[in-house]
């Protein structure tokens, strides 16, 4: 088990913090947008400069499920001044909406243009065990339910099938003057998530949402990882799906 997961379990948590989830992705070679964690305003500015503007700020808190609902996300930050202002505003806003929320820090993240967003999900089904999902982000998944599933583990062909199977595939393949996105990069992410599902049975659910993809690469921008409540018990109950 990866240390990030061990530490979270040890501290009795049932989910990873945003930066931990991104770090977990990195340990599996899943590409993520450049990021750093700031605990002070100075660190935030330092990170903004190092990552390079524009950047995005996201609050990190175990108590906040929907960051943007509490003003915990600021985008299109172009320079040090804007960053300082946004940093302060995030703290104020969170304090106003959720005064008791524990704020661990602020994620400073490279702002990646997102003409096309996809999502990759992982869950454990009562009957099938680990299953993986792929879909186009936003309205496509939420309203149209245009998603595909496979049972883990998957192979390269399964990954390609998942991508080509969704109705929105022509959007990924390119249309009019819009070139095809890097489909291989998406297939690679699916394979890595499938591997993670098998190697880390403690993960009960995971969403990489959104993943920004263009013609050159794919990058995870946000990730949510839920852990099993009582890990050892779960293993004993369902040994065949591990």
């Amino acid at each position, binding site marked *: 088990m990866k240390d990030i997961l061990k530490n979270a379990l040890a501290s009795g948590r049932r989910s990873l913090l945003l930066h931990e989830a991104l770090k977990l992705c990195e340990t599996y070679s899943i590409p993520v947008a450049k990021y750093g964690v700031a605990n002070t305003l100075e660190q935030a500015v330092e990170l903004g400069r190092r990552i390079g503007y524009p950047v995005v700020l996201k609050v990190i808190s175990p108590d906040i499920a929907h960051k943007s609902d509490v003003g915990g996300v600021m985008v299109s930050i172009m320079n040090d001044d804007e960053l300082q202002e946004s940093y302060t505003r995030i703290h104020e806003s969170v304090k106003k909406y959720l005064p008791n929320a524990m704020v661990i820090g602020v994620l400073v993240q490279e702002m990646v243009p997102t003409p096309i967003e996809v999502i990759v999900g992982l869950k454990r*089904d*009562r*009957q*099938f*065990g680990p*299953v993986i999902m792929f879909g186009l982000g936003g309205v496509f998944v939420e309203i149209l339910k245009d998603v*595909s*599933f*496979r*049972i883990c583990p*998957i192979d390269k*062909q*399964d990954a390609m*099938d998942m991508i080509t*199977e969704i109705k929105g595939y022509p959007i990924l393949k390119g249309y009019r003057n819009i070139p095809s996105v890097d489909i291989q990069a998406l297939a690679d992410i699916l394979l890595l998530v499938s591997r993670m599902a098998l190697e880390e049975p403690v993960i009960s659910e995971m969403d990489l949402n959104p993943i920004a993809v263009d013609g050159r690469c794919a990058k995870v921008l946000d990730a949510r990882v839920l852990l099993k409540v009582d890990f050892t018990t779960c293993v004993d109950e369902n040994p*065949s*799906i591990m």
Partner: protein
Amino acid sequence: MLHYIFNPRSIAIVGASENPLKMGNHVLVSLIEGGYAGKIYPVNPKYDYLLNLKAYPSVETIPDQVDLTVVIVPREQVVQVMEECGRKGVKGAIVIGAGFREAYLCDGDKYHNELAKVTKKYGIKVIGPNTFGVVNLHASLNASFTPAFSKLKAGNIALVAQSGGVCHTIMPYALKYGIGFSKVLSIGNRLNVDFPEMLDYLLTDEDTRSIAIYVEGVDDPRRLMDAARRVVPHKPIVVYKVGRFSKADVASLSHTGSLAGDYMLYDAAFRQVGIIQADDCIELVSMAKALAYQPPARGNRVAVISLTAGPGMILAETCERMGLKLAEFSYKTKSRIDEIVPPMTMRHNPVDLGLLAAEGEKSGEVIKAVFEDECVDAVVIGYLYSWYGDFLKVPVQEVIECHKAHGKPVSVCLAYPEGVWDHLMKTLEENSIPTFPTNELAAKAIWSLVEYGRILRHKYGVSLG
């Protein structure tokens, strides 16, 4: 061990009865009328003889080896009967009765578990509980409570349903259209014979070329996937799965004891291992028939030939809806067709042969040109009875010869009033060309052959030449 269930040398019927209102009577009648050639031993302490057969008070008093026992007694007695069977060395059992884990009865699980224990102890394979029985048409074995199953044609489709009702739903249609089966059975509650065990058995069964399964839900679908991975490279599997909606899920639990589960995941699992999905019972057997008769297609380019324009449109439409490509004929093929067919109708896929209706030879030449085209992977043909007397010529021999010469899969719709074209249908089917009463079914059948070809190449790396 499953071999003995389908090919028993001797059968004990526990709960056999002379009362035609009892299932124990129906099973006995099925076996006798079905022409079973082995020994039949009715077991019922109330009788000395049953339907002219000597009856025995218990399985253990039968003075012979017993391969298979059909158990038709109340659930409270099943475990005791199975204990006797175990001591007797019986190899397989069919447990017709219900009231086990599927039932709204608090002790259903208890009976299930006790039965599981005793059959495990003696290594007895069980079909059921909660099954109508087992039919092996190549062995004249009808070990079910419905004698009518013996009337089915012996063929090469194995039908394995979670529900006996589904077998009964398919049976009249199969009788009407002469669809032949190797085995027909429902596996009900699947005590120790579930879909994976059946699939592995059918893989080795020489009489089975394609497998049709009706699935509500299984406890460990990964086992089903693993079995399918072993079978599909050698024999195609078609599934009709219910449980898309939540009510069906609950109904399934009380029907055969397993939740139907998340339909999306079953759909994904079937795609993943290359199980072909049908949308209803008729599609299920139609696709299974095509797959039992015909080779898989090497590609997805289909040619549509029909007697008139409308059916041609329906064939083309259905093919495209299923994801097939209408073949673009080569220049050579187009020229050949243009020489034969007057320019008053569709000629370049779909091909309308209406103007050649009375000229079988010319129709045959067109069909030959289409089959010979390198750009065509599969052919679907739609003929309908019209006009009067022998005016209309169906190019049956040409279709048979073309299929043989090129190995390309073909399916044929023959729409006709009962009786008039039975001989044509018979000739086609005897030559392994599947016929269907509607254009939609003929198109879906050809799709299943294209799909199986895709699965073999794409998932299992099988080269189709």
